[in-house]
Every structure is written in C-alpha cells, then in structure tokens.
C-alpha cells in the first residue's frame, strides 16, 4: 500500500516533466537529437576502440578527462551556495541552494559518463567497485575518486529528495537534514581535492606534481560553478516566473569575484616558481603559454582564458558592473569559458606535452570525440531540465501531497 502511494506520487511528479510549451518540447527534441548523435559516435568508438580519438600513448588522456575535471569543479561548487545559505542563514540564497544541489547531481552524473566513455574496457567497470571488484584502496587516487564522487552524488540525492519531500508535505526540512548539509561541505571540498590529488600525486608529470594544484582547483571551482548557477538562476527566473531575489545573485557574484582573485594569485605564484627556477620542469608550462620547439597549439587558448578570467574578475569585482545584468552575464560567461579552458584541456594536455621521454605530440580532438562530448553535455542539460521541471512545482507549492 505504501509502495502504491509512493509510485503514484512519483507519477504525479513525473507528469510535470511531460507538460510544457512547444518551445519546451523543441528544447527536449534538440537535446535528444544531440544525445543520439553522441551515442552513435560512442557506439562507433566502442567498435573501433579509442583509436577513433586523437589520444595516443604520448597523450593518453584528452578531451573526455578534461571535461570530467571541469565538471568536478562545477559539482563541488554547490557548497558555495550552501555555506551562506545554511551556515550563515543568508535567506535569499537559501531559497535557491536547491538548484545548486540539482546541478551538482547533474554534474557528477556527467563526470561518470565522461569517465565511462574514456575507458578502454567499459564493460569491466565493476572491477573498480569495492567488494565486487578489486578496488586498489587506499593506494590509488582513482579509487578514492570513485568513492568520493559516488558518496557526494548519493549525499546530494538524499538531501534533495528529503528537502523536496518535506516541502511537498508542507513541513520544515532543516531541523533533521542539516547535519547532512553540513557534511556535504567537506564532501564537496574533498571531491575536488581528491580529483586534484589524482593529478598531483604523479611525480612523472611535473606540470601536475605541484602542491598548488589542489588549492587552484578549489579556487577555480568556486568561480565556474557559481557563475554557471548565476546564469541558470536568471533563466529559471524568466521561464518559471520564480521569485529569485537580485540580492542573492549579486551576493554570489561578489563571492565569485573573491574566488577568482585567489585563483589568479595562485596562478601567478605557479608561473613565478616555474619560470624563475627554470628547472627541466618548466617545459610543460612553457609549452602551454609560449609553445615549445615550434609547437604552440594551446597558446592562443590559454592566453584567451587568462584574459577572459582577468576581465571577468574586474567585471564581477566592481559593484557597478556586478549589479548590471549585461556586464554581470558577460563576466559569468567569460569566466565559465576561461575556467573551462584552464581547468580542462589547459590542465590535462600540458601534463603530457612534452611526454615523459621528451616527445611532443600535439593533441587535437577528433570530430568523433567532440560529438561524444557534446552528446554528454546535452545529456546533462536534458537531465537538469527534467530535474527542474519535476522539482520546481514542488518548490513553488504547485504540487502538494
């Protein structure tokens, strides 16, 4: 009987995702088209092997892992909303923190997809699981990452479900869930720290083997995630006619500016250490910023990212531009692009160029890789759309039990 009620409730919520304007259906169709495209590219990759990508022994990780790394940052950023919302009881943000957690769930799911498409033997994925497989814990940082990512995912799902359940029954949710919410703060920091350590712990790759990597990861994550949230809030506000206070948006933007300041400072510290000491470890960062032996594929990208980050920092720092929606959105967009380059390909590729024996192979992703990547982003967008579609009616009190 209890199950029947639960199923019924699920369908009531699920029905909400099917209702919408023509524009909504067009959006879903568009995303589905991209997903199918990505899926077909992936099936081709599955048949031919990863040779369909541009990755080779010299550069053995590429676009997939770059996207994974960026998205871990986005997922971790949910706490950026949680801290002021729940800990400091900043009410305007508290009301929208839920959407941040939904974004975290989506981002982690995308992370898992990006790892899956990068695997040479995806059907053996159970080998990595504890008990069932032979997880190399605590030795392998990748094993740690599997644990913390899934832990964070589970935690966020529990929080979101519980909060929605309480809201839908017209009850207060905070008293019983807040320990989990507090727990999610160190968890968010840990997923990003562990992912940073994944790179950091490899003495074979001097570009990654710098203690500053984890702090830089966190600083940049606290930029890109909330920046993405700011844009999403405005879209939600427009489509659902939701009451999200400007105050909340401006406050988050201000925090992003501070995070970016730290991010730029850490970058400067890294640049100084590498170039001033000029050991053999300088080659990868030289390749990244100036090119090496005539190979300079990443140079325009990383300078674009650096310039975009600095402009975004200024736009979000000055109250005048921060509180103007045109410049605010420009700042957010610049920042997302900047961090996507810097914490994506800009982080992963120089780890492999030059490779451990000094060879330079310039990696440019193949069309197939890009289509799969777009497919996963479309899957993430679809997932987030459906999650919003299902939860906003509960959030606004339209659906009540």
């Amino acid at each position, binding site marked *: 009987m209890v199950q029947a009620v639960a199923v019924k409730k699920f369908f009531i919520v699920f029905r909400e995702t099917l209702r919408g304007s023509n524009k909504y259906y067009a959006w879903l169709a568009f995303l589905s088209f991209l997903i199918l495209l990505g899926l077909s590219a992936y099936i081709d990759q599955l048949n031919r092997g990863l040779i369909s990508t541009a990755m080779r022994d*010299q550069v053995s990780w590429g676009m997939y892992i770059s996207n994974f790394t960026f998205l871990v940052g986005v997922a971790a950023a949910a706490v950026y909303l949680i801290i002021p919302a729940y800990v400091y009881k900043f009410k305007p943000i508290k009301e929208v923190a839920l959407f941040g957690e939904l974004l975290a769930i989506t981002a982690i799911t995308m992370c898992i997809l990006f790892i899956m498409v990068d695997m*040479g033997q995806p059907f053996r994925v159970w080998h990595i699981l504890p008990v069932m497989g032979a997880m190399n814990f605590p030795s392998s940082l990748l094993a740690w990452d599997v644990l913390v990512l899934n832990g964070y995912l589970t935690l966020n799902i529990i929080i979101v479900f519980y909060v929605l359940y309480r809201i839908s029954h017209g009850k207060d949710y905070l008293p019983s869930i807040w320990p989990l919410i507090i727990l999610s703060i160190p968890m968010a920091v840990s997923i990003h720290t562990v992912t940073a350590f994944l790179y950091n712990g490899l003495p074979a790759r001097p570009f990654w083997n710098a203690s500053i990597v984890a702090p830089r990861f966190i600083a940049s994550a606290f930029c890109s995630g909330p920046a993405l949230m700011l844009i999403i809030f405005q879209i939600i506000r427009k489509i659902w006619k939701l009451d999200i206070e400007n105050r909340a948006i401006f406050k988050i933007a201000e925090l992003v500016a501070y995070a970016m300041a730290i991010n730029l400072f850490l970058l400067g510290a890294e640049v100084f250490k590498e170039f001033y000491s000029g050991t053999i470890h300088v080659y990868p960062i030289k390749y990244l910023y100036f090119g090496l032996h005539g190979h300079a594929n990443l140079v325009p990208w990383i300078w674009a990212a650096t310039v975009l980050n600095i402009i975004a920092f200024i736009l979000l720092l000055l109250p005048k531009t921060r509180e103007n929606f045109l410049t605010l959105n420009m700042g957010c967009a610049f920042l997302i692009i900047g961090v996507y380059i810097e914490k994506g390909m800009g982080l992963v590729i120089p*780890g492999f160029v030059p490779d451990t024996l000094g060879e330079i192979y310039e990696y440019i992703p193949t069309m197939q890789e890009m289509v799969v990547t777009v497919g996963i982003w479309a899957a993430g967008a679809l997932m987030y759309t459906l999650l919003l579609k299902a939860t906003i009616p509960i959030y606004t009190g339209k659906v009540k039990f």
Partner: protein
Amino acid sequence: MSKIRSNPSGVKLDRRTFLKGAALGLAGTALPLDKTDASFWEAFFQKHFREMNDDEKKKVIQRLEKEYEQKYKKAIHIGSEKPMPGVLFGYGLDLSRCIGCRRCVYACVKENNQSIDPQVHWITVLRFKKGEKWIDLEESEKYYNPQNVPEPGYFYMPVQCQQCENPPCVRACPTQATWKEPDGIIVIDYNWCIGCRYCMAACPYGARRFNWGEPKRPAEEINPNTHYLGNRPRYKGVVEKCTFCVQRTRNGRYPACVEICPVGARKFGNLLDPQSEIRYAIEHKRVFRLKEDLNTNPKFYYFFAYGR
C-alpha cells in the same frame, strides 16, 4: 525445440524466440551478440588472476587457449610459470656500446606478439647529441632514420619498462590489474585491466602502451609460446608493456632483446646472485638509473663499460 518453457500466463515461448527477443533488446548496447554461449559470460565474470586458485587458473587458461585457437587457427600455449625463489631480475644496458640499430625493438615485437597495426612497440630508442647537454630528454630524438648507425657525434639510449621496485603505475591502478611479482617483474592481467590509462599517466618512463584499436597481427607471426602475464595476445582497450620476457626468463632463458643485440650492450640476470653479469656490471662499472630522483628504484641499470 526441445526446451519449451511456459510462463505463468500460459503463453508458450521457446528458448530461441526468447533469446532473439532479448538479443534485439540488447542490440543498442553493442554487446557481442554472436557469443551468447557460456564462454562470453565466463570471460565477463573472470576473476582477478591473483584471486584464482590453480584449478581456476587452469580452467581460464584452457578457455583462453581455445579462444586464441579459434581466432588465430593455430595452437597457442599459455604458460603460468611462477617466479623462481631467490631471484630478483635486473637488467643492464651499456650506453657506451649501444649503436641505436633498433634490432631490439623488432625482436621484442616478434617475441611478444605486439600488434603490428596499429603499431605497438615496447622499446623506445632515443638518440642524443654528444656535447653540451648529453642526456636531456627534451632534446632526444626518437624518429632518427639515417642510412647507417652509429652516427658520429650521437649516442643512443633504449628505454623500456624499468621494472621499478617502487612502481608508480602499480600504486595508480584503481583495480589492482597490475602488480609487482616476487621476482620483481611488473605484470598486467589483460583480462582485468579496465583501460583507464591512469598507469600511463603515472609512469615516468613512457613504458606503458595502450591498445587504442583492435590489435592486429598475422596468425603466422604469432609466437605460440606465451605466458598469461606476458606475451599472450592482448585485447583492444587494455594496457601492456615489457615484462623482461617473463615467458622466457622464468624458464631460464635470456630476454629476446638481450639475445638479438648485435653489440652485446644488453645484460640480464639475477640481482641476488653475486656471480651474475648484472651484479658484475653494477659493482664494476659506472652505473646510473633513469630519473633516480623520483625514488622509483628501477631494476634497469644503464652503465658505461668503457670510454674509448
């Protein structure tokens, strides 16, 4: 059909129709459908090599031998020789002798059943210019192709798996698919590797190779004397590397690269035996190990036997 099963609602469904339906349902998931027999699932659920007892190992090896025979139309023996007690393998390479002829690279391919297309080599020979910088890896050249070697003014350094005592790749592997054997060789269970390539990122010597595509090699070029942890044919999407020819060395033989080297620059033996060639080299010659500062403790020693 002999096996007719009826479901609760009384609708009769024979096994083949049922399988067909199931197969159609699975079509999108790209599972190998032609292998609906038990062996596919046996392979899927195969245990980690180190968790198998001798009986299980025997069974798995029999199945693999059958699979290989079907694929290559010739009998392939898969050995599972255990490490010899009191043996720790070590390798020496005389940089004052190596002429960079790459005979070792191809002898290795011949012995160890690497894929010909896409090309997989376990040994990389680097060329350096004599003079100011000497062994500066950033200045090394891997694709040199002169008429004759050695070229005046250059020297050569082959690099392959250094069989570290403190291997970063083993630490990195999330599934324990690669490990250090008691005789010091780092091996991979090709049926357990998930192909995440974290070990390749972790290896400071560029020794690990990935099967980016389906490994292809003419059946007549397959070396039928193999070892489970060594040179048996590999799969698409798994990592492989030099094992000091485990299939040869555990039977007392020299690795293939040692035997082919026309200048005798390659030395091999038991590090625990004071009479071995490798011990003589370490004790009497100028020795170094690559990237010693990383504390990987390679068992691959580069040495200079002579000036000239």
